[in-house]
């Protein structure tokens, strides 16, 4: 070794030893890590990594979506503003490489090279066990499965190691779409069974803390309420290899700070910001802001039709004419929503949902209707809202209160804490309230089944019952299953018209999901669950 080289290597060593104390400008390794890492900031994080768990919250769905595979998924199409939007009607294989829909069953051929995160191959018995689990654990997953007439373990049949058949209970158009939602994910049955106990036969305690799937990402670190770290699964075969190597998802409760993090370029992507912030970020153009309508979702004013004064359809119509629609659009939402009011008089009813009503703000008409109903001097009532969404609900209710005051209706605002909101809804005693409903499955009859049907589900918040309505909704469901388009169209138009004439709930607008991201982030896709799909995203 020459003397010069020796000196060089020594000084190199010395530099290496000193490096940690040197001022921390990003070391090159860290800069690399940054360019391959997606940093997400949001208000809340998951409480459970498994969607089959007890009380898994919505952020938990995002983990499940990215860390587990389903048999099938949806294709993408171009949505509003050219943003990729899931295609309700087109399915693509995910863990299945091929599927074959028969008259009363569907058969899936599994990919032979698919492996779980721990290296065990994915087989048909894992699929059956997972679907059995979804229909058996109770609570939300079982309920969601039943929405597609998937209720019994006997429906899931192992044909051979790589073939699974799902038998239909009855003809139901929603069965196939229901197999592409988040719930029917495929779990590593051997691994979970090993960690199950007598008290917990489905191993929910185990999968709560770690992901046991075959998906494109796996959770490597989870500090509840603080952060989730996910690494790419390099052996993933159920789709094209994702570009993002690592996802760090940090919980930042302060909305102002999330915006600051985005604008300073420290965070890559965020949602759950106030509308005003989104609108401002949109106009200043430093970030990409994507705003897309909730599929099958509406914010509405509901009225309890079992009690006076709202048992009188005239009063309800008067209310529909008294809503300050445009003010809500401008002052509360900053234009980030689709209006669901003020359709032209001659506009024919469409076979679609959501669609706008023909109501618009007309105080004279409202006064006249109220007088006809015998409430010329108004009445007193209470409007309730969910404090969890106070950012929208509070100003909205204040505007409604102001508007109703012009009719002599004295409205008290009742703010219900988030934890209590569901209880209040179930009681069905609130006379007047605002709420959002949006269905994962984007079909009008699905929405109406939950919100207007006389079987009085929790989402029929108005306790609305009408035999005529039930007939139309049931008719549409049967017609859809049998592929009878003419009957289907007639029934859908029928129930939409009836819902607008009887107006137990007043549609206000279709909310937008807003996502803000750095300009170098691409590949955002809109999904029915409205959470992020990291698999398609790229940075740089």
């Amino acid at each position, binding site marked *: 070794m020459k003397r010069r080289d020796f000196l060089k290597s020594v000084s190199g060593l010395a530099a290496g030893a000193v490096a940690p104390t040197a001022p921390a400008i990003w070391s090159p390794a860290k800069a690399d890590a940054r360019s391959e890492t997606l*940093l997400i900031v949001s208000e809340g994080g998951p409480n459970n990594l498994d969607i089959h768990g007890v009380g898994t919250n919505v952020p938990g769905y995002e983990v499940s979506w990215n860390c587990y595979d389903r048999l099938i998924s949806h294709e993408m199409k171009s949505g509003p503003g050219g943003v990729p939007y899931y295609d309700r009607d087109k399915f693509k294989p995910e863990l299945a490489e091929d599927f074959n829909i028969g008259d009363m069953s569907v058969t899936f051929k599994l990919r032979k090279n698919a492996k779980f995160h721990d290296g065990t191959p994915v087989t048909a018995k894992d699929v059956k066990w997972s679907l059995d689990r979804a229909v058996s654990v109770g609570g939300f997953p079982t309920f969601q499965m039943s929405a597609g007439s998937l209720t019994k373990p006997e429906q899931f049949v192992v044909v051979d190691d790589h073939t699974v058949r799902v038998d239909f209970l009855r003809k139901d158009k929603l069965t196939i779409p229901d197999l592409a939602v988040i719930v029917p994910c495929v779990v590593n049955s051997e691994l979970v069974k090993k960690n199950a106990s007598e008290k917990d036969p489905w191993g929910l305690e185990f999968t709560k803390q770690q992901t046991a799937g075959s998906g494109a990402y796996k959770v490597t670190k989870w500090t509840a309420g603080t952060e989730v770290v996910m690494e790419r699964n390099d052996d993933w075969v159920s789709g094209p290899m994702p570009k993002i190597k690592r996802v760090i998802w*940090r919980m930042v409760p302060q909305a102002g*700070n999330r915006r600051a993090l985005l604008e300073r370029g420290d965070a890559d992507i965020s949602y759950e910001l106030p509308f005003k912030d989104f609108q401002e970020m949109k106009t200043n153009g430093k970030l990409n802001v994507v705003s897309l309508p909730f599929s099958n979702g509406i914010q509405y004013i509901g009225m309890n039709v079992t009690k006076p004064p709202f048992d009188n359809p005239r009063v309800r119509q008067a209310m529909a004419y008294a809503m300050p629609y445009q003010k809500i659009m401008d002052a509360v939402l900053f234009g980030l929503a689709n209006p669901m009011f003020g359709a032209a008089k001659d506009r024919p009813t469409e076979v679609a949902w959501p669609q706008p009503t023909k109501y618009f703000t007309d105080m004279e008409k409202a006064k006249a209707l109220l007088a006809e109903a015998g409430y010329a001097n108004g009445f007193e009532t209470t409007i309730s809202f969910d404090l969890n969404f106070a950012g929208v609900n509070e100003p909205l209710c204040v505007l409604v209160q102001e508007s109703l005051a012009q009719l002599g209706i004295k409205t008290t605002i009742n703010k219900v804490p988030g934890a209590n909101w569901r209880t209040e809804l179930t009681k069905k005693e609130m006379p007047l309230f605002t709420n959002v409903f949006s269905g994962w499955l984007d079909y009008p009859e699905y929405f109406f089944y939950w919100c207007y049907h006389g079987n009085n589900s929790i989402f029929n918040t108005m306790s609305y019952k009408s035999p005529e309505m039930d007939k139309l909704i049931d008719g549409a469901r049967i017609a859809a299953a049998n592929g009878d388009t003419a009957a289907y169209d007639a029934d859908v138009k029928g129930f939409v018209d009836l819902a607008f004439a009887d107006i137990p709930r007043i549609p206000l607008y279709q909310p937008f999901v807003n996502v803000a991201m750095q300009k170098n982030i691409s590949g955002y896709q809109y999904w029915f669950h409205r959470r992020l799909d990291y698999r398609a995203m790229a940075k740089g």
Partner: protein
Amino acid sequence: MLTMIGKRLLFAIPSLIGVVIVTFLLTRALPGDPAAYFAGPAATKEAVDQIRKKLGFDKPLIEQFVRYTGDLAHGDLGTSLTTGQPVAAELRNRLPASAELTLLGLVVSIVIAIPLGVLAATRPGSWIDHLCRVTTTAGVSLPVFFTGLVLVYLFYFRLGWAPAPLGRLDVFYSAPPTVTGFYLIDTLIARDFEAFRSALSQLILPAVTLAIFSLAPIARMTRASMLAVLASDFVRTARASGLSPGKVIVTYAFRNAMLPVITTLSMVFSFLLGANVLVEKVFAWPGIGSYAVEALIASDFAPVQGFVLTMAVMYVLLNLLIDILYGVIDPRVRLEG
């Protein structure tokens, strides 16, 4: 001394039992149905009932209480529903984060407030006295979350001097192996100086926020008690005997003025633990305050009970510590138990 400590601890037992009962009843009296909350936005009545049964909320209250105390005796504080983790483990992980922040905030505050108070007392009516008055008034009148947000806006967003308000460490550093749970100490033990710098720089803004808030009571109390002591006979005697002003103030006056200051400190410390809740929210700090608030919003009983119980234990220990300190500072108040 030991018997005194033992006796004090014995006295604390009834209050702890009281705390257990009261928090249990209070959390049950909260409006809201955790089963409905956790059944999710699309649950049927049956789904809600199933979850209620799983969580054990369908049992009579007394049975729930017996089960709770039984678990408590085994050191099991239950499991949080919002985060899905055992409460005891979470409190253990989060307490150091809150404690590190609160202690640092308190130290910063003491370092500023006590000299300020002493100087203000020795020169009443001077500019330094006015400065003391203005800072303390401003400190108490600004709510902590507001100070926090202003500091973030200025030093992070506008000037870019402070790191992103993303909790205890920069996203790309990994936490040091846990020894004390205090990152400043653990990073030094692990000889990871880059992480130490990161932890320290993350701490500065929230600690300053807390310090600004807690300056007022400490500085005002120091000033008031120094003024009283400086006007007393023994100080006059000391001065008359020709002792140097420094010796009079530090050795004679300050030591005697310390007692009320110590009392205030203990109050401020417990105050800060409360104020922490908001500061933790602003700085995404993974401490126990933000944990408890989130649990409360979700009607998640176990963490709220665990939090209140931890706090009660901490108060008991704190009071004990203060009483012992009294004895050290002023032998006249040494307690007989």
